[in-house]
Structure formats: C-alpha cells, structure tokens
C-alpha cells in the first residue's frame, strides 16, 4: 500500500486530506457504511496518523455527516425522535466507556491491540451490511410494557406505497442491550456502528426499514458526540487533520446521497466492500507488526 512517506508542505497535506475525505465520504455513503470506516484506515495507512488521532478524526467525520443527512430525516419526520432518544440511554454510556477504554489502551502503549481490534470490527461490519433485512413493512409484533408506557410507536408516510404506515416498538430490552454494545464499538473505534443500530431497530424493535435507517442516523450523531467529547477533551483530536477530513467527508456524503443516488445499489456496494475489507486487513497486519 502506498504511503505518504515524506513530509509534505502543509497546503498539499490539507489538500490531499480533503480529496481523500471526499472519496471516503462518497464510498461510505454509497456502501452505507459511513465515512469513518473508510477515513480511519486511510488516515492510518496513507497519512501515518497515530491510532487515537485517527479515531478522534473518525468521530468528527461522523458528526459532520450525521448532522448533514440527519437534518433532512428529522424534518421529513422519518426519524422517530422518541424511540431514538429512548435508545440513547444505552448508546451514550456505551460510547463513554468505549472512548475511555481507547484512551487507556493508548496510555498503556497498547495501540497495536487497538489496531487489530479496529481491523476485526471493520471486517465484522461488512457481512452485516450485506445481510441487512430491508423488509419495508415488517409484520406487527405486540409491544412490551415499556414500549406501551413510553409510547414508542408512530407512523410515517410512505411515498412508494402512497399511504401512512403505523408501527410500534417491540422487545425493548434486547434492543437496549444491542444498542449498548453498538455504543461501546462506536466509542472505541470512532465509527457510527450504524449496522448494529439498524439491527436492533429492525430485528428487535421491529420497525420499518425507512424508520430504522433514519432513526439510526439520528442516534449516530449523539453517540458520536459522547465519544468525541471524551477524545476532544483528552486532546486526541488534531484540528488540522480533523477539519479538512470533516469538510471533505461531508461533501462526499452529500455527493453520494443527493447528486449520485442512482449509484447506491447492491452492485456498487459489492464493488467497494472488498476495498474496505483490504483496508481492514492492512490495519490488522500493521497491528501485528507485519507491515
């Protein structure tokens, strides 16, 4: 893998970061994996950043892209604010714990272990992306008592079906457990962990696919804010790296979601996923000291 092996002028460094981030945002958007999964390995492999700085930059990337796309979902009422905020009671503590573990592993000079775990998590995300259920309207399940008490239900207008679709959340306890795990993964590695969040929303809460995707996006920003808050306050966010990456990824994600939506199909996903798998393997090899 090519690496920026010589020190380059600052303007060129920033320009390269913006260009790589645009590509990462575009690929992240088209594959549905998000920008962080592409940006973090590229920062480590191409630019030689330290592991915590790459993870801190990953958080900034998530915050920029989730705020950009999340605003549209919230405005169109596809995000279920009530369900999203309820589940944040699990993802936020998870992210705080995850980010704290990352800082402690860094202090303990265990960055190699962090690299290996990072690569393994990236590899684990890929099958989840491929096997997403994508059933538009799931069969109705009875809500549990917590769902009834908190009113975890709603409806949205499905333009394709041209009707309002009601839904009600079921099985909140296992969903909270998965969300806590998603928060830990997000906090440790600076990624959105949207695959795990959508899994909890679709398979346990039994929400329609569109509501699950939009609500996951809504939640990703808050989970990332928990991890980013720890990493920023701990001094692991380098603004001269994070700023061009945030701007580039947000632009790339915009391109992917608005300008090139027709490209976001399973074929494109299959095309890019091997690239992401190769990046993950490269990260693991670096962690093992084999690069």
């Amino acid at each position, binding site marked *: 893998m090519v690496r920026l092996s010589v*020190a380059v002028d600052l*303007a060129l460094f920033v320009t390269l970061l913006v260009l790589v981030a645009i590509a990462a945002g575009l690929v992240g958007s088209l594959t549905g994996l998000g920008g962080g999964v592409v940006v973090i390995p590229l920062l480590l492999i191409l630019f030689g950043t330290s592991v915590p700085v790459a993870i801190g930059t990953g958080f900034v990337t998530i915050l*920029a892209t989730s705020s950009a796309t999340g605003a549209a979902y*919230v*405005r169109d009422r596809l995000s279920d604010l009530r369900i999203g905020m309820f589940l*944040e009671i699990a993802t936020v503590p998870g992210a705080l714990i995850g980010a704290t573990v990352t800082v402690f592993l860094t202090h303990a000079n265990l960055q190699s272990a962090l690299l290996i775990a990072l690569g393994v998590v990236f590899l684990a995300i890929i099958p989840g992306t491929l096997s997403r259920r994508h059933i538009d309207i799931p069969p109705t399940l009875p809500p549990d008592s917590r769902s009834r008490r908190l009113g975890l239900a709603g409806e949205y207008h499905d333009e394709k079906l041209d009707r309002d679709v009601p839904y*009600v959340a079921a099985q909140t306890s296992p969903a909270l457990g998965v969300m806590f795990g998603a928060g830990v993964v997000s906090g440790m590695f600076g990624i959105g962990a949207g695959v795990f969040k959508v899994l909890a929303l679709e398979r346990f809460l039994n929400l329609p696919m569109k509501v699950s995707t939009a609500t996951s996006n809504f939640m990703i920003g808050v989970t990332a*804010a928990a991890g980013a808050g720890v990493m920023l306050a701990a001094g692991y*966010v*380098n603004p001269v790296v994070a700023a061009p990456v945030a701007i580039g990824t947000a632009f790339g994600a915009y391109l992917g979601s608005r300008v090139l939506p027709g490209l976001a199909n399973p074929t494109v996903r299959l095309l890019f996923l091997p690239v992401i798998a190769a990046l993950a393997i490269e990260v693991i090899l670096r962690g093992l000291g084999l690069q």
Partner: protein
Amino acid sequence: MSTPAPTSTPSTVPPLPPDAYVRMALVLRVGLGLSLALLAGGLVAYVVAHPDASSSSILAQTPILSYLSFAGLGSGLASGSIEAYLTLGLVVLVATPILRVFSGFYYFRRAGERSMTAITFAVFVLLLVGVLAIGPYVR
C-alpha cells in the same frame, strides 16, 4: 382469545408537536453550518499563517491543548488565536447533537411526559459528563 396488537401510538401518549421536528432540524443545520464555517476559515488561516509547516510537524503535535478549558478558549478567542477558533469549530460540532438532546428534553418536559423527560435529561447529563469530566480526567 388473544388481543390484537395495537398498530398506532397509544392514546395516552400524545405525539411530539410538529415544531419539535422543525426546530431540531434547524439546530442541526445551524450547528453544522457554523462549525464547518469556523473549521474552514480557521484551516485556511492556519495554512496561510504557517507557510513553513509540514505534514510531519502537524502530525507530531496537537495544537489545541491550550484551549481545552473555558478560560483558555476564552482568552484564545479574545486574542484572535487561529487555533482557538479551530477549537471552537470542533466544540460547536460536538455540541450540536448535545443541544438536540436538550431540545428533546425541553419538548418532552413541555408535554408533561415525565419518563421521557427523565430519559433525555439523563442522556444530556451523561454527554456533559463525558466532555467536562471523563475527557479531562483521562487526558
């Protein structure tokens, strides 16, 4: 005989008012716009002000450590420090979702929903604890 599953919002819990969605979307747009403007402006100014800097010098430092406190950030902004404005851009970016949680707390409290008010307040406090307590503690 089994009871049919409800398919809509229970009548005892009213939906959030429409303006909650509009204002939360506005919080996201304004927060993102402000932070990206601060980061972009700060980045251009930083590149112009450091013509001799290289990628290796940037990767070897974290130029915002002096500004990760209220007093440090305030004095940095007052003195026109570029790094302080970059820090502010990052702080606004992190604060945007936190403000969104606070707006959720406000709307649930206004609707008189005690459980959701307590949940959103707990999430808000946890987020503040991360930024103000855990991060500085583990630095």
